[in-house]
């Protein structure tokens, strides 16, 4: 099956040429289901944290986007309390030419550049707009509390 070939190839490339700061491993028993660890980008309130995500490739993949969410508690205007992520390429801007790798890089980039004008978590976005300094402080605290690599 073409899709399986694509998935296997992607996994192979992820292993051979891993993305710095991102670790994506298939979960045993389901080649479409991945455990992801992502380092918070430096120069961001998430720096120093290691975040857990899960990623699933639906039946229509790659014609439909992967489904991804954070498992680690996040304070971010585009991530809700279930870890769901508001990112255009995971929705209508998805292109079948994108890959797991590009998706994860885009998510990492979203951590560096929150977009409170297109919020998923309204209360966080509000805070981000009215008092960015405090918002960043809270995000840093949450990173310390929930995303320490030792945990």
């Amino acid at each position: 099956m073409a899709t399986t070939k694509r998935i296997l190839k992607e996994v192979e490339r992820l292993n051979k040429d891993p993305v710095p700061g991102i670790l994506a491993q298939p979960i045993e028993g389901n080649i479409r289901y991945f455990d992801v660890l992502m380092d918070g980008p430096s120069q961001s309130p998430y720096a120093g944290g290691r975040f857990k995500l899960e990623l699933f490739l639906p039946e229509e993949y790659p014609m439909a986007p992967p489904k991804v969410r954070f498992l680690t508690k996040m304070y971010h205007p585009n991530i809700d309390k279930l870890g769901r992520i508001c990112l255009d390429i995971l929705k209508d801007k998805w292109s079948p030419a994108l890959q797991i790798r590009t998706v994860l890089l885009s998510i990492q980039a979203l951590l560096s550049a929150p977009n409170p004008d297109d919020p998923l978590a309204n209360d966080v976005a509000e805070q981000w707009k009215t008092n960015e300094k405090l918002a960043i402080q809270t995000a840093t605290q949450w990173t310390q509390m929930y995303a320490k690599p030792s945990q």
Partner: protein
Amino acid sequence: MYEYSEDEFMAEGDDFVYSASDYSEIDDGEESAEETPNQRSQPVGTQTQNNTFSAGAGFDDDDYYGGEGGEFEPVIASHSSKKPWEVDFKVFDPNELRAKQEAIIGRMEPVLATSKDATTLLLRAYLWKDEPLVEDYLTDPEGTLTKSGISIDQTSPCTMSGDPDFVCEICFCDGEEEEYFAAPCGHRYCTACYHTYLVGKVQEGASWRITCPTHKCKMLVGEEGARLLLKDDEENLLRYNSNLTRSFVNDRDSFVWCPAPNCVYAIECHVARSALYTTVPSVECKCGNRFCFGCQIADHMPAPCYMAEKWLQKCRDDSETSSWMKVNTKECTKCRSIIEKNGGCNHMTCRECRYEFCWVCMGSWAEHGQHYYNCNRFNEESSKEARDSISETRAQLERYIHYFTRYNNHEQSAKLARKLLATTEKNMEQLQRELTLSWIEVQFLNDAVDVLSICRSTLKWTYVLAFYMKTDNQMIIFENNQSDLESATEQLNDLVENPTSHGAIEDIKRKIIDKTTYVKSRWETLLTDTALGLQENRWQFTI
């Protein structure tokens, strides 16, 4: 778009749903509704609506579609006999729609001095708004093409193979034997993946907006590309073409599809969004469906769209009725008849079955014995408050019910009028036989039923207008018109329903014809008055 599952989509059939990103709500630049009749040039195709009554049954199907004069000569002209409530419109079948697109493209091709494919895509990308397109294109052709996702050097999409370095970034197949496809941007994917990608979009309803699958690449695959990819897939090619026609209508504010089930016609009408507060653009499709161009629900003259929408929502919610029913009535737990409590104590006796019970807990009264004031949920203070709020609700509700009853009555009568048509036809046959009248001589009955039917519809909506109208002298004048039309309509209804009880046939015929003419004139009076009244802000409304 991805949120529609295959199943849902299949259920929708061709009636796909546009996603927000596909639809942009921009006013049609051309042929704006503000244009005065004088500014309009030669009428090309005019659908006269003088004789509104004959439309429908004996629709006068002139060759109104004549020669396609092109988009930029207004296709619709005003005519002197136009009534204040009438709007100009034109009905298109799918072939006429295609012809119209072709005509616009043919006209624009020399203006833009570029290929037909580029002209077509540019027009689509500009939602057929010629003025901004010409302005942008003549100022900056390359920028305009690039912005619209069209190749600047007229590169054609192509399929090829034989490149050993080729790798499809979608399925990772590779090698020189793989056939690939590229839009003018040059991004290559294997033909199989490109086809799957395109078909997925086509089945979601997309057509010309389909771009190269590469992330952030805005290059349009184009009709030429789509035809190449779908050359062996007739089913999807047909769907692609029908999506194209669909988007021609959907992309433009001056066009709507007739909302009747399975109807293939589209209607062109030029009425500005802002005019919908004071104008009711009623149109009639060739399929016979009368509807409002502004909101696409059934004709709701003389109530404007916003009012009709609000009213229908109110009826749907039926919120006032149900909330009133909730506080004022209960069902007898024994025989299920509805009981309203007018006052008095909680010891209730059902009128129907004589069951005795407590209003508060609905339990049998016998069980209350001597302790009836201690019913666990009874509280004098709270029930008093409840009663006060009830009278307020009740007053509002009674007003609503007053208007709703009349609205509903005309709706029901209109349905009966349709049945009447069947009986009328029988009556006509009978008359023909008995009096050896010609077919044309008995048409008066049909005309009468048509008039009845349209008057019922108008009367129905006058009650909505009245419901939202503030009481003043102007309203009294409106109500007089309404009541004149209403009584005339009822008289005509009676004549048509029981023709034989009104004397000799020639007599009845005369009576019906006269009454029909009279009702029609009352109808026109009322519509003229409301159309002008709305434009003059003669009435105050509570919404």
